[in-house]
């Protein structure tokens, strides 16, 4: 079994286990407001970090790619205009693709 398969199955097991734990553990275990707040905030911190890291870095180095930055900017504009999820993605990818096709970035 390859390492990627192990990662896939471990992630699946972990994610499923977290769901099952919620249905199974007594209510009071996670009743603490701090724990609830932490679980609410974790995705925000991680997804913001993932978005930034994938936009401006490559491996260990900062890598400012104009097309990628423009694509993410287009996503921000779409979000400010309250566009639906799919449209946000299309705006981002389309902007980056168009700039690259035009040879601008």
């Amino acid at each position, binding site marked *: 079994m390859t*390492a*990627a398969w*192990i*990662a*896939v*199955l*471990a*992630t*699946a097991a*972990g*994610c*499923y286990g*977290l*769901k*099952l734990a*919620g*249905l*199974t553990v007594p*209510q009071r275990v*996670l009743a603490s407001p*701090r724990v609830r*707040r932490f*679980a*609410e*905030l*974790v*995705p*925000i*911190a*991680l*997804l*913001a*970090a*993932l*978005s*930034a*890291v*994938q936009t401006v*870095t*490559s*491996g260990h*180095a900062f890598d400012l790619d104009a*097309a*990628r930055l423009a*694509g*993410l900017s287009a*996503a*921000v504009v779409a*979000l400010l205009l309250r566009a639906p*999820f*799919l449209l*946000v*993605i299309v705006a*981002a*990818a*389309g*902007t*980056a*693709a168009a700039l*690259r096709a035009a040879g601008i970035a």
Partner: protein
Amino acid sequence: MSVWQACALSLLAFTGASQFALAGVIASGGSLLAGTVSAILLGSRNTLYGLRLAEVLRPRGARRLLTALGVIDETTAMSLAQPDAGSARTAFTATFWCLYLTWNLATLAGAVGAGRIGSPQSFGLDVVGPAAFLALIWPRLRGGRTERLVAVAGVAIALGMIPLLPVGVPVILAATAALGGALASPGAPTRSLAAKPTASSEAVQ
């Protein structure tokens, strides 16, 4: 990530943000361990959804094992919006099967399709992940100051650690921003689940 791996992850984990995170790390050649840890951390909110759903659905025995697979943002929102336990169970089951089928078919289509196009960059696919992650948290960022501070701190921590730590690890450390946020403002009210749009629902609509 192969087509089979993408589909297995989608079928078994069935939670969008974690799938995107692991796929991103594998695609960029990052540490698999770090990718797995951040993907699992991202699934932690489903535990809270499970707690809320357990009160309403009261699944027992083997049924609980299947119910657990369907504990995600959308099923929780739909179930908790119902007036009584019976409708909540119906809403959960209907939402789950509907999303489970469309989500996994979309994963299959995407995984097969991605292998047939040329350079992912020429289609701007390298910006899909960042845009999707931002869109996922956008409603929360609008919702509160603590949320915005946690996001900014998470970005700062991750970017600051990029030159120093193995690829993937800086993102995990960003979770400490959430810890700080939770300790600083534990009393913030939990907003209505139904008011919170999420990735998979809108992605398949």
